[in-house]
Every structure is written in C-alpha cells, then in structure tokens.
C-alpha cells in the first residue's frame, strides 16, 4: 500500500502539471523529454483505483483525491468522497496509539449503514496530518483498479481488436505531444530566421 501511495502521488502531480496551454519551447521540451525519463523510474504504474464499500459495493471515493495511508493502522486517507459516505453526528474519544487521544467522528455507508472509517476532529500534534481527511479502514472497503477487468470473449484472438477508450486516450495524448513539438519547432525556426536576417544586415 505504501508503494501504491507513492505512485499515486506521482500520478497526481502528472495530471496537474502536464500540458497546460503555455507555448514556451523550453518548457515544452522539458515536459516532453523530462517525462520520458521519469516514466522509466515508475514502470509499474497501476491505473487509478476506485474505493467501494466492502459490504454493499457503493463507491466511496477514488485515488485521484489520495491523501496518504498508514500501514500500521491499515488506513487510507482521501481528501474527497462521494455522497455515499455519511459523516456521523457524534464525536467520540479514540486512542490512536498510546498517549495520543483524539476526538473522531465515524463515517458510515449510506447504502448499508456499516462503519467505513472516521474523521479526526481533534488531534494531538503528531496526528495533525490526519485532521479533516476521510480515513477509511482497509478491512471495511474494497478497491477496484481501473483496467483490471479481464473477462473477454474474443474467439478470433488478439489479431483484430477494436479501439478502446484506453487506446484512444493514448493516441490523443501522443497527438497532443506532437502538437507541442511542432510549436517548439516553429519557435526554433523563428529564431533561426531572425538570426539569418541579422546576419544579412551586418553584411
């Protein structure tokens, strides 16, 4: 779970920084080629994960709002959840570990009313990072990794496969990268052109 947390964080940064519409050529190249280098480091990058209630399977949130995980306590933290999560009305005492007492609020599933986790409302200093995040206990939730569905019916074999949204997404991403490349080329050419002009004027 810890390694997953890392790769998820990594991905989130990707989503946020990749390809905004600025056309600064150095920035473009940095993004295009820098990304390729980074990609090699994180080759085992799973798809995003949807977390569902362990009992009734209602989605409670997904890894796009990942906040962290605690292996020792078998907890994951999300910044944002669905309306299927009900925040309890009462606060109660909770001893997170020896000598760290907290006040917590329970989280319930709207579908089956089972307890899914908690929100820390009042914490000692060492637990401040958990305050007001949605903490789910791993034993009470299930997860589904996008792309892990594997049942297929292709009798013809993999020779002739239709285009999926996944494949399409990859093609679109490549097209975007190519567009950025052209823009960076255009800028270089302009610079060369300007340089030439200057050279002519000097002569």
């Amino acid at each position, binding site marked *: 779970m810890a390694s997953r947390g890392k790769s998820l964080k990594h991905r989130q940064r990707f989503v946020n920084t990749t390809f905004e519409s600025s056309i600064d050529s150095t920035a473009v190249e940095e993004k295009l080629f820098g990304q390729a280098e980074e990609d090699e480091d994180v080759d085992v990058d799973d*798809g*995003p994960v*949807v977390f*569902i*209630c362990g009992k*009734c*399977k*209602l*989605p409670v*949130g*997904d890894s*796009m*709002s990942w906040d962290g995980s605690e292996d020792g306590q078998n907890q994951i933290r999300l*910044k*944002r*959840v*669905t*309306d*299927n*999560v009900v*925040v309890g009305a009462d606060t109660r005492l909770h001893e997170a570990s020896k000598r760290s007492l907290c006040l917590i609020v329970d989280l319930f599933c709207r579908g089956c009313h089972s307890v899914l986790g908690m*929100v820390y*409302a009042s914490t000692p200093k060492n637990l401040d990072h958990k305050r*007001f*995040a949605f903490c789910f206990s791993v034993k009470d939730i299930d997860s*589904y990794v*996008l*792309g*892990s*569905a*594997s*049942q*297929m*019916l*292709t*009798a*013809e074999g993999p020779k002739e*496969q*239709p*285009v*999926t*949204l*996944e494949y*399409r*997404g990859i093609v*679109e991403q490549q*097209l975007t990268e*190519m*567009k950025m490349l*052209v*823009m960076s*080329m*255009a800028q270089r*050419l302009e610079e*060369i*052109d300007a340089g*030439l002009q200057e*050279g*002519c004027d000097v*002569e």
Partner: protein
Amino acid sequence: MEFDDSLLIQRSGAAAPEAEDTQRVTLHCQQCHTVLGDSLGVCGEIQCMDSIVCIRVTDDVVVSDAMESAHKGEMANCIYSSLKCRGCCCAVGKVLHSAPPGLAAVRSMFLLYRANISCYVLNHSSMVKASTLTFDMKPLRENMKKVRQQFEVQLDQMSLIKRRLVDGSVTSELLK
C-alpha cells in the same frame, strides 16, 4: 464532498463532468453496485440497442449458457446470450454470437444495457446514470489532419529559410 478547513462542503463544479473526464469511469450494476467494468475496456456505444460496448468486463458479469434468438426488433436475426450480474442476478446486457451485417462488428463484445448500469466518475466523486454519459467515439482523423497540417506549415517555413540561405551565399560570392 470534502473538508474546507473544518467545514464540510459539497464540491462545486462536481455536478457536470466534462467530456474528457468521462474517460475515467467505473461501470456498476444499477441494483447492487457490483463493479462490472471500467471505461478502459469500453469501445463505444450502440445506440439502437441503448448499450455500452465493452471488450473487457469483470468476472462479475456472467454469460448465460442459454442461447436465444430474436425474430423482430433491433436484434432480429441475432443469436445471443444474456449477461447477468453475479451479485444480484439482474440482467445487465447481452452478447451477440451471430448477427447480420449491421451488428456484425459487436459480436463477442459485452453489450451492457444502459438503463441497468450506473457509473462512478473518477475525480468528480459522483455517481451518475449511464444514460447521462456518452461513450460515442468521434474519429481521430480530424485531429490527426490538424497535426499533419501544422507539420506541413513548418516544412514550408524550413524550405523558405533554406532558400534564403542559398541565395544569401550566392550573393556574397558575387560581391567578392
């Protein structure tokens, strides 16, 4: 919903997922919420049957052994099996084994019936009915054509500069 400091707020803008975001959804049985698949395995939709076309689904989609055939309607002259949800045994779609030319392309694909599917949209933390999302795939050709045109413009530009370089060196030769 999320916390803004200590205040629980409904996330604004979560109501209307934008087109590009619909790329990441999970497909659930409308009745028991079991995960049946996700957008990565979706190939498109087939409007006449009001179904989402998937090449991959989870093992919780059960293909019935019984083969049926229809003589009228959209599925006329098709041989198909129905798909059931493992969780609640509710019918969630069909798979065509044999079909006339019009539906030949979707044979051996999972056709999930929109009305019985709900979707969870990632990053929006919201559940929506499958009938409100579109999985219609527009051809990539337009997009590719645009990139190609951009490259061609740059090629012209390069030839222009090259020509100017050649001309420049010729005139400087003459001047000597």
